[in-house]
């Protein structure tokens, strides 16, 4: 097909639109001036200020703990869900379960946040648990939407996986659990890692749901950032953003490399067999 000018132009425009704001944010984090967008010289002083701010450091620590816990619980539950829906062809409530797992993916955050908060309040007045809201209620809320993302990632890997490997192990007398640990787990491992990482970053990023279900003294990092942005210009947010974007770029690089390696293996093997 003849290569036109339209598609490349649109792609260049689109990628510029996606990246220009982020790049300018990173550049201006090294700006000495308090006016974020007026350049007056290179400086690392906002980074210094950032690491001297106990509120931000505390919130960052809390957010990392919450993200670690929610991503890990969500990894287990989301993987179980993927196995149930991909490998068990028929069971009662299957359609219902399939609906429930994908709904949190697109449910507006304000609804998820409000509904969980109302649940926690109702449960507290009925059973006295959870007593108050804080880290634990945030972890429960984050786990619920993270498991949907883990499910999507793991499910697509399970669908693509060669099922004859599992069947062969089963024919050789291995129990289902043994098959899972020895055969399935190593094959879907890259998907598990990217699912966990996805859950981790989504949990780190969540503002709306956390705001509903958090309690006094449990402000996560996005909540602190949001209130800082609301108050006006704050160059230290630029510094913080640059650190986070750097870490994410690193993480995505590693995850993509892992997934590409996972995908390439079977193809390269086929290629060698054909030669």
């Amino acid at each position: 097909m003849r290569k036109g000018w339209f598609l490349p132009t649109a792609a260049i425009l689109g990628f510029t639109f996606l990246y220009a704001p982020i790049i300018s944010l990173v550049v201006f984090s090294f700006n000495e001036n308090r006016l974020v967008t007026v350049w007056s010289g290179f400086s690392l002083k906002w980074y210094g200020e950032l690491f001297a701010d106990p509120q931000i450091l505390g919130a960052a620590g809390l957010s990392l703990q919450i993200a670690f816990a929610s991503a890990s619980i969500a990894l287990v539950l989301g993987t179980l869900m993927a196995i149930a829906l991909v490998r068990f062809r028929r069971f009662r409530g299957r359609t219902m379960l399939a609906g429930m797992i994908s709904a949190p993916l697109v449910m507006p955050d304000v609804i998820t946040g409000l509904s969980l908060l109302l649940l926690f309040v109702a449960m507290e007045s009925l059973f006295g648990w959870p007593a108050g809201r804080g880290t634990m209620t945030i972890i429960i809320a984050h786990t619920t939407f993270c498991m949907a993302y883990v499910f999507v990632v793991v499910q697509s890997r399970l669908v693509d996986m060669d099922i004859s490997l599992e069947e062969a192990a089963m024919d050789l007398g291995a129990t289902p659990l043994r098959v899972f640990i020895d055969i399935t787990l190593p094959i879907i491992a890259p998907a598990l890692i990217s699912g966990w990482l996805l859950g981790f970053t989504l949990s780190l990023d969540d503002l709306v749901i956390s705001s509903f279900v958090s309690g006094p003294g449990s402000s996560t990092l996005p909540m602190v950032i949001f209130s800082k942005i609301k108050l006006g210009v704050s160059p230290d947010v630029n510094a913080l953003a640059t650190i986070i974007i750097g870490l994410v770029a690193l993480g995505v690089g590693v995850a993509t490399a892992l997934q590409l390696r996972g995908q390439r293996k079977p193809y390269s093997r086929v290629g060698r067999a054909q030669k």
Partner: protein
Amino acid sequence: MNQAPKPLERQGHRPWQRAEQALRRIGLSGRALVIMAPAIWLTVFFLIPLAVVFGISLSSKQFGRPPYSSLLTFGEAGTVQLTLHLSNFVKLFSDSLYVSAYLNSIKIAAVATVIALALGYPMAYFIARASDRWRNVLLMLVILPFWTSFLLRVYALTGFMRGNGVINNFLGLFGIDPLIMMQTDFAVYVGIVYTYLPFMILPLYTNLVKLDEALLEASADLGARPYRTFLAITLPLSVPGIVAGSMLVFIPAIGEFVIPSLLGGPGTLMIGRVLWDEFFSNTNWPRAAAVAIAMLVVVVVPIMLMQRAQSATVER
């Protein structure tokens, strides 16, 4: 080949099998556990909460903890009285604030979805047609913002569009007066397209990359011009991708809170922001719950469409 095969019974003493036998003894198969654990979690923390929201939307605001009246009151002699207030829903239809916020959200989400489609489609098509090496690089460039903090990307836009922001400084070089972009509906459109563009591109890409090039060549051989080929072949075949991408932008955009609150002006009414204010500023939990139910009604059809697409990929 003179080694005798291991007797099969020996395997019964391996740890995996012992664990499975122990579970089976208390009446649980591994299969049931695999299904039950996530099913119970989702029922308790997803399904029941939605029912609770519906219940509380039928109560009324009162002072105290929790700040809503209970639906059931237990009277003397074991009578139970059920009190349902429809006032919250009546208010949603009679108060112009809610009606215009509702309509405005749908309008903003729909227009932003169309813009995102117009921008995302050529990008997805370009990536799908790129050479293998470039395709992976470009895909990663689309995925990277998707992993980057949503809040920080909205913040990056404020730095871009502010009165003394990057765009206005750039225009100033040519002697153009600063444009007012922040705190307008325009900024909200830009914000939604900017943050949700990867959600539009990825499903479109997945669809377009599977497009059989032979069809395009056949069409060209038969003398069709490129735009004709596009309208007759590419576009109809990519409808599933268009639907999936559009839903992934439209549904979250309807309930968006962060973008209108950071980029929009005081006049940018959106239903997610109204819900937030009802809850946090007015502490009117029943009203907020009613707003949530009203929002669910709008998004439930697109969500069902999404789920059908989702279960289709699972069945595959």
